[in-house]
């Protein structure tokens, strides 16, 4: 009846996961009660859960990412604590079985359920606004994508309370992840969670590639698109090409585990090297899926806060597309130590280094964007400069890893761990925190507190360096990854420093929550009435904060690379706005519960597959399919926003903007 699921699946003998599950359950219950008491369920249901508004979906993605960041960080600091204690005679407080689940969960969560939803959240929120349009190409599918990602996150977290998570490392290399060596449900949790969320990610990419290629404001030619849109396009093209590979390779591993196939097994003609190749054919572009939009965010921030256009815009676009293409030709550098031979290693090594050229160009272009500018040191600029300083060092160690004979002595060691944390924290996380600060007022109509924001930055910046720079040295001394126990007592001081660094990052995460709560409390002091709090240059700053559901009453006419800036300067010079256009009623897609119901059935189906409850799996599949059929036969697609409402809102916005621009023209 319940497959492999028995009461024994609950870890009664392990206090850490059990107590954590109870605390999380209590917290969720508390939130649910609070929402009920506030009578906020209908609001949440209508404004967020069933929303097809790209902005709301973007916000939900970022909330998901922030919640999962807490989970991923908790895993991270537990690992740091274990390695700080379990040295020499001590075995620390985590058994290998538990520790191995933690580092697997840490990597899986941070990449798939923190970095990915965070980046996709920004693409959702920002891209249609920057393109000067009202929504993405497929609004309902957008909602489905989000809920499938959330479903994957749910399944990963469920493993804390029911059963176990994989003990294989975040890429689940076979044969270790085959039934022979990992008979438990851990790897099944991993596989199913990634398959479900992977569907969501591919749908997102379809949506955004279509949106960027087909739906732009009049006059917004390709070479007038803001750089963030370009990086979003490159990133989504990479998703489209790379994620299907992941889906296939994970499906093959599932066939091995569930139906006794022999893709990657030691016997029956399987070959685990095939998995290594396929997973990195996805895995390397994945890095650029994350970091390209991050580069986009930095570009927007560099231009806005320097009060100058981005230096070398076309060069940036070219660099982005170059990285996009070369990133598919370098996967073998993840296993130079397989000894594939001089020719192969050298070719892939050089290809990997070549990526350093367009990346270096980007760094210089940000540098020259600041040159001749008037740099305002708001929080996002702290992250920009922190990123530039951190990332060039991460790039240096990356090129070292790309030289095969150097890689031979640092690969798989803590040097590698230090390197990828340096580029992912210094590159991606700093961008996400910068973007969060930068676009927060656009989403909610008030800015975040600057002083707390700077404190958060310093926590991340100092914490990161303390937590990972010693790892470069430890790697040289022969410390490898994923050690539940440290053999060499002389490493102890360095591991202690790394623990302190992780704790400082933890303080930064706590301060992020404090900053949010404090900013909400004192929001009236920092209202963004103009919709343009940073003196922006791209179209999202043209509309109100928060923007109306339909973003723009009339789609803006775009002239030149900096659509909003040009318009703003003309208006300031003339001291008047463009003539009032002829408003028309606007059609917007209606809300739909399709996404949340599909995700519910997908979760049920996924859970059933993990535990071999076949009747429930079939039920879940039928349910998910049925809801699509039901959706396909819907009668109503859109609702009309009457012209009077559009006109009234637009006039109010024009009045505010006129006042603001008038002030600006007085001051210049």
């Amino acid at each position, binding site marked *: 009846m319940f497959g492999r699921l028995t009461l024994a699946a609950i870890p009664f003998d392990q206090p850490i996961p059990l107590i954590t599950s109870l605390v999380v359950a209590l917290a969720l219950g508390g939130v649910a009660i609070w929402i009920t008491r506030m009578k906020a369920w209908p609001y949440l249901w209508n404004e967020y859960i069933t929303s097809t508004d790209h902005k709301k979906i973007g916000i939900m993605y970022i909330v998901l990412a922030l919640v999962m960041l807490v989970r991923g960080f908790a895993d991270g600091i537990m690992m740091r604590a274990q390695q700080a204690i379990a040295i020499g005679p001590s075995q620390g407080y985590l058994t290998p079985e538990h520790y191995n689940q933690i580092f697997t969960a840490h990597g899986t969560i941070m990449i798939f359920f923190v970095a990915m939803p965070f980046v996709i959240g920004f693409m959702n929120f920002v891209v249609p606004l920057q393109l000067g349009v009202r929504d993405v190409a497929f609004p309902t599918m957008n909602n489905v994508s989000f809920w499938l990602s959330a479903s994957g996150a749910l399944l990963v977290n469920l493993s804390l309370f029911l059963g176990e998570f994989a003990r294989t490392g975040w890429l689940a290399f076979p044969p270790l992840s085959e039934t022979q060596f990992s008979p438990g449900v851990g790897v099944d949790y991993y596989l199913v969670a990634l398959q479900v969320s992977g569907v969501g990610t591919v749908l997102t990419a379809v949506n955004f590639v279509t949106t960027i290629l087909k739906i732009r404001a009049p006059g917004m030619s390709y070479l007038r698109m803001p750089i963030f849109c370009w990086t979003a396009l490159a990133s989504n093209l990479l998703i489209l090409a790379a994620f299907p590979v992941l889906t296939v390779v994970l499906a093959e591993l599932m066939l091995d585990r569930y139906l006794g196939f022999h893709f990657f097994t030691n016997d029956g003609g399987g070959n685990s090297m095939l998995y290594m190749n396929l997973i990195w054919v996805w895995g390397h572009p994945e890095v650029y899926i994350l970091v390209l939009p991050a580069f986009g965010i930095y570009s927007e921030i560099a231009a806005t806060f320097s009060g100058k256009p981005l230096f070398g815009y076309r*060069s940036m676009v070219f660099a982005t597309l170059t990285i996009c293409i070369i990133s598919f030709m370098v996967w073998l550098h993840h296993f130079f130590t397989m000894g594939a031979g001089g020719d192969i290693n050298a070719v892939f090594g050089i290809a990997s280094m070549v990526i*350093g050229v367009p990346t270096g160009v980007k760094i210089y272009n940000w540098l020259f964007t600041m040159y001749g500018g008037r740099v305002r040191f708001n929080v996002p600029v702290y992250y920009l400069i922190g990123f530039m300083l951190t990332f060039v060092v991460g790039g240096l160690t990356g090129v070292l890893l790309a030289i095969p004979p150097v890689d031979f002595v640092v690969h798989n060691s803590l040097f590698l761990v230090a390197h990828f944390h340096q580029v992912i924290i210094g590159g991606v996380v700093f961008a996400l925190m910068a973007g969060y600060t930068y676009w927060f007022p656009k989403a909610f109509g008030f800015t975040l507190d600057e002083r707390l924001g700077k404190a958060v930055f310093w926590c991340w910046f100092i914490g990161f360096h303390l937590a990972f720079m010693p790892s470069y040295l430890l790697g040289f001394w022969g410390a490898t990854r994923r050690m539940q126990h440290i053999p060499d007592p002389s490493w102890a001081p360095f591991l202690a420093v790394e623990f302190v660094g992780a704790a400082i990052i933890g303080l930064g995460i706590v301060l992020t929550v404090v900053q949010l709560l404090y900013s909400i409390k004192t929001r009236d002091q920092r209202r963004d009435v103009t919709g343009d709090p940073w003196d922006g240059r791209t179209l999202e700053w043209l509309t109100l904060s928060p923007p109306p559901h339909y973003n723009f009453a009339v789609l803006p006419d775009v002239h030149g690379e900096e659509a909003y800036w040009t318009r703003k300067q003309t208006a300031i010079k003339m001291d008047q706005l463009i003539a009032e256009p002829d408003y028309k009623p606007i059609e917007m897609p209606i809300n739909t519960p399709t996404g949340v119901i599909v995700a519910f059935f997908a979760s049920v189906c996924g859970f059933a597959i993990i535990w071999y409850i076949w009747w429930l799996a079939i039920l879940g599949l039928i349910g998910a399919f049925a809801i699509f059929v039901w959706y396909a036969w819907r009668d109503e697609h859109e609702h009309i926003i009457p012209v009077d409402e559009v006109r009234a809102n637009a006039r109010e916005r024009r009045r505010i903007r006129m006042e603001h621009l008038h002030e600006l023209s007085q001051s210049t």
Partner: protein
Amino acid sequence: MKRERLHRLGAKGRIGVAALALLAAGCNRGVLDPIGPIAAQEKQLLINSTAIMLAIVIPTMIATVAFAFWFRRGNKKATYRPDWEYSGAIELVVWAIPALTIMLLGGITWIGSHDLDPGKPLKSNVPALRVDVVSLDWKWLFIYPDQGIATVNQLVVPAGTPVSFRLTSATVWNVFWVPQMGTMIYAMPRMTTRLNLQADKAGSYDGLSAHFSGDGFPGMQFKVQTLPADQFAMWAQGARGSAYKLDGPGYAQLSKPSSYVKPMTYGAVAPGLFDAIVSNRAPPSPVPSQQHNQPAPPAGV
């Protein structure tokens, strides 16, 4: 572990080690302290490439801080050029600097990848010692096919002699790594990798698995003993006297999962054992042995 090593050193060495340990606990080990030609060349490459890149990374970092500071909004002395967004000359330079650096490093990479290819035999007047390495759950088996002996978690090699390794795994993936000897390499089931290394200094060094392989993984450490050539021959002779035999039953016993296994020696090895493991066949027939009651090898903790 540390104490053991200290005993083996002379008084001078002991003071030296203590001083180094105080200065930067542990900087006398690992990749930065090579004991053989491969490791030494790799260290040199590491340092050279880092130096080449630092030559552009450090100025870039300084320029970042300097530009941001000088062009801060409050600085009246800085010229504001709100429309300056393109300069062909600068574009040329910013593409050229990384491109030239990468061309230089690319050349180093091409040469280094071929010179230091793990499978390439080392040039030497001395014939290479052959060692077959098998990773098991969770220990290392070293088979000496020419000597007919085998060891577990202890690799003994003659100093100044090239060592030619063949590696495989009997279970999951591992990486064979002796940081002070240089190149690490995968040990993969059903596959054979090749590695050629050499240690010139006699002594005791740390080796480990550098690729996660399951719950017993942290206990997959081993020791490398490098002995002067004549002492190695004596050691091999002595090892043949060990009562443990690595035949079918012996291998079956050894391949049971165990971790933190103490070093041990087998006095005889079934011929063709390594190939049998690679091709996933049953271990070959037992070694014709003189004594029947062979003791069971000690299990790990």
